[in-house]
């Protein structure tokens, strides 16, 4: 399924889409928020975009952490130790 009116630049739907992140993060002033809320109530396509955008943000936030392999931390720390031993302490 493809969005009909919302896919062309400059339509009212797209102008609202430009503020969706601000809407999700509750950064919009009440009147703008209310306008989007009313639009969402009657535009099924925009509701889907809103839901999928929220889910995208959640998936990014829940992405598994990448920890440095122990060997990497050890190697870099060794390089740093050599540098610390070589350099004079930084002067403030």
């Amino acid at each position, binding site marked *: 399924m*493809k969005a009909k009116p919302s896919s062309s630049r400059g339509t009212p739907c797209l102008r609202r889409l430009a503020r969706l992140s601000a809407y999700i993060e509750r*950064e919009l002033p009440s009147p703008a928020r209310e306008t989007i809320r009313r639009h969402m109530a009657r535009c099924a396509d925009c509701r889907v975009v809103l839901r999928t955008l929220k889910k*995208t943000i959640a998936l990014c936030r829940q*992405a598994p952490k990448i920890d*440095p392999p122990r060997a990497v931390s050890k190697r*870099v*720390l060794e390089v*740093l130790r050599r540098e*610390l031993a070589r*350099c004079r302490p930084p002067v403030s």
Partner: protein
Amino acid sequence: MGGAPIVPTVTNARDNRRRDVHRARAGLKSLRSLCYKKHVDDADRSLVERIKAGDVAAFERLFSRHHQRIYRFAARMCRHAQDAEDVLQDTFLAAFRHLKTFRGKARFTTWLYTIAANSCRRTRRGSGVVAPAKENEPDGGALPVDDWTRRPDALFLRKETRRAIEDAIAALPKDLRLVLVFRDMEGLSAEEVSRIVGASVPAVKSRLHRARLLVRNRLSRRFQESRR
């Protein structure tokens, strides 16, 4: 006195209560986060002062406190283990050499991330996999409106889905990826990101929104394809 008394509707009262609860929770979360950040900042500042006073061994403590976050950021930006290691090393070497320029006006982590972001720009493969320009316009093509959020939760825990998210992020143009990684993955505020990338807060928010829409569009296409 013929007018009917004005009674708030149940829906309004419920909406107001929900909003109040949401605000109270957000306020509490923000207060906890502020207290934690202040605690972290104080500890970092004290270590920096010790190093400036000549106790260079304290730098190892700074390394152990922050190397994981810098590696994680570098790995997401570069998507190559050797580059991530290079960025980690360059960042801490540069931080040590230029520690005298850290005045403590910004948080130490913000300062460190700024060095790491500059280091990422210099890596050999740092640009990652960037999609063709047309694909990088959130409204450049038809907007997919398949509601994949109703798929079973198990789908989002699968390795392929996680890989699809990483791929979608890696395909972003670098300036958008930088903002999305900092904001949505590292949890920095828009103000902190603005300081690191040297752009205004509205510009950061606008880039973040474009990045999110692009990732969302790619995921939508991916889920549509997997359904066929």
